[in-house]
């Protein structure tokens, strides 16, 4: 029983060594990097047809070209299908390798192959060991007390906190992977919602509703839009709880809930009045029912249709944006069509707020903007930030305090002591080693 137990322990140790060799091998690192290279390449070459407004709902998939359709299919296959499972498996492997390498850097596992530096020192092993300790201390290496004749090798680790710095790189990777993996479980995000001026968006899950109160545009000197600031009113229990300012590069927080303004785009407000009475308008196609005010959202040059059922009329509105992102270069072509026979009753091109009279009906048009809003609860964001910070710290550690694997032994030989330093091949000839050897007279 005892022998079987011992062989089991020996087998476990050999297996652990094999795993450690694979994990610490540069080939493993290169293979993992190559996997991510393929993923990044696919992500980098696939053409994204989304516009900067992220208004993906407005895309017409039938208008995609052949190359776009192929690249979309490729990216779907690689990013969502088999590739997604492979990506998860590789990420898990990266996590495991990072964990083992981190502990390897902090605890210094014994070397399997290395270069031996032999030299003799005068005096007893304790005296020689003390000289060795002093010499190693000058290059920042620590060495424990003389372990005695019975123990063959003693590890020499970097002194101080600097020995933990390179391992921080792998700890950072672990934190980032954890933040990515756990985010769907701990966090939450709403759908991207387009919100026009005065519209209300209810977040039933959080028990609040949002109203877009104000949009402020700050032009650049070249006529483009420099800043786009929107003001949201947050209502809780029917009462105004707070007003929030959103910018394209600035989120707003309310009770742990983050609001992001993902983008913005042009919109047109349409109203129809018959004397003092507002008529109902129906957007075609549209999921919402008839409303007295319709906000039509555009993404570039597009056309929209609005029906006025009570008057047998349909409005065809074509939006033109001459200079993308330029203020004041927009226009709207309006056609009023009788829906029963398709006859164009009236046609006009407008470029600013105006109104039109048709069959005793007053149509009012006003240019405005809409924003794309997303609400998120992201409790693990801090973990991701910490991971990124540790990555940088670890890299600095690798550059300025690179890890050194060094094992030392000393035993009495004649009148003196024979010392052996065991170190990896790549450390041979390193300046710090030359410094230690010269101090010891070797």
């Amino acid at each position, binding site marked *: 029983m005892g022998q079987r137990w011992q062989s089991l322990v020996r087998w476990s140790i050999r297996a652990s060594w094999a795993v450690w060799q694979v994990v610490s091998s*540069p080939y493993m*690192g*290169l293979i993992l*990097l*190559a996997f*991510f*290279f393929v*993923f*990044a*390449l*696919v*992500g*980098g070459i*696939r*053409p*994204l*047809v*989304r*516009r*900067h407004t*992220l208004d993906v709902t407005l895309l017409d998939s039938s208008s995609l070209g052949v190359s776009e359709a192929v690249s979309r299919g490729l990216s779907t296959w690689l*990013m969502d299908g088999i590739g997604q499972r492979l990506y998860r498996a590789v990420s898990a492997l990266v996590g495991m390798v990072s964990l083992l390498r981190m502990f390897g850097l902090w605890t210094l596992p014994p070397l399997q192959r290395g270069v031996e530096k032999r030299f003799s020192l005068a005096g007893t092993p304790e005296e020689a060991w003390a000289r060795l300790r002093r010499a190693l201390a000058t290059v920042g290496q620590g060495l424990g007390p003389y372990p005695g004749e019975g123990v063959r090798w003693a590890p020499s680790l970097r002194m101080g906190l600097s020995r933990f710095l390179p391992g921080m790189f792998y700890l950072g990777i672990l934190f980032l992977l954890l933040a*990515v993996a756990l985010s769907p479980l701990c966090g939450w*995000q709403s759908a991207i919602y387009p919100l026009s001026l005065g519209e209300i968006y209810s977040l039933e899950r959080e028990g609040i509703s949002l109203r877009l109160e104000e949009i402020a545009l700050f032009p650049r000197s070249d006529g483009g839009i420099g800043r786009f600031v929107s003001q949201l009113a947050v209502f809780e229990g029917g009462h105004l709880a707070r007003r929030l300012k959103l910018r*394209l*590069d*600035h*989120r707003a927080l309310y009770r742990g809930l*983050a609001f*992001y303004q*993902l983008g913005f785009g042009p919109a047109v407000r349409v109203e129809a009045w018959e004397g003092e009475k507002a008529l109902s308008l129906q957007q075609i196609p549209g999921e919402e029912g008839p409303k007295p005010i319709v906000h039509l959202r555009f993404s570039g040059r597009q056309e929209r249709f609005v029906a006025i059922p009570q008057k047998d009329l349909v409005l065809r509105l074509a939006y033109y944006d001459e200079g993308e992102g330029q203020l004041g270069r927009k226009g709207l072509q309006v056609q009023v069509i009788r829906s029963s026979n398709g006859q164009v009753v009236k046609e006009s091109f407008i470029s600013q707020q105006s109104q039109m009279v048709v069959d005793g009906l007053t149509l009012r048009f006003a240019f405005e903007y809409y924003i794309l809003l*997303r609400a*998120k609860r*992201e409790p693990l*964001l801090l973990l*991701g930030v910490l991971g*990124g910070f540790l*990555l*940088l710290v670890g*890299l*600095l550690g*690798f*550059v300025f305090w*690179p890890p050194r694997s060094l094992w030392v032994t000393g035993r009495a030989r004649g009148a003196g002591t024979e010392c052996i330093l065991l170190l990896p091949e*790549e450390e041979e000839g390193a300046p710090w080693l030359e410094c230690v050897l010269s101090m010891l007279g070797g």
Partner: protein
Amino acid sequence: MIFWVCRMTLGVAALLLLFSFVFAGRHRGDRLFLLVGCFLGGLGLGLFGPARGRFPLSSWPLMVGLVGLAMGVWEGILSPNVRRWVPILALLALGVGSFLPGKEIPWRIFWVALVLACLQSALVVGFFLWLPFHPSAWRQGRVVMGLALFLATGAMLSWGWGAQLAWGVWWSWDVQECWHLLGWLIVASLVQATERWRWPRLHLRGLALSGGALLLGVWVASPYLLRALAVSSAYWLP
């Protein structure tokens, strides 16, 4: 156009200061790098002011930048050897002057990411172009590649930070993000290879040179490349 010239000048200045830091006290070129880097840094900062309709010394970040660079110039002229802290001080001053905004210089985290990415590409390419003149600079390979990886990581993280602040997603497999990742992976592979193997034996020079050149080309051309291919990134193109 003037901003493009400013950015390029500042980028080259930062690169030269980085080189003078790496080679400080080891090569004759360190003093030249420091002096030219400081001169170009001062020129870039000087151009920034008029471009924004301000005098060069009317804002404190520009003043800090110019004073730090002036110190670098005097150190480069008077000191017998370039000390390593001087290029770092000049680099910090350049960073303060360029990126810490007064009210008149808009803060753009994506610009920081772009500049860092360009710097890391230029560092890799520049190092391998420099080698034929100073073969002994192989010894600095690990430090240079480590710094390049640091810059690449900084570029990726700052990009992710900007994306998180703006859109609430720090990673979304976007074209620009993937290009950042490609750059990081190439440099990380080089670091991984140089960590265990010796440079001359494996002849990694060609690989690193082509990788760095590819990245530099992509980064310089990326906004124009995307527009030329009619491919739009989900993110704002600086």
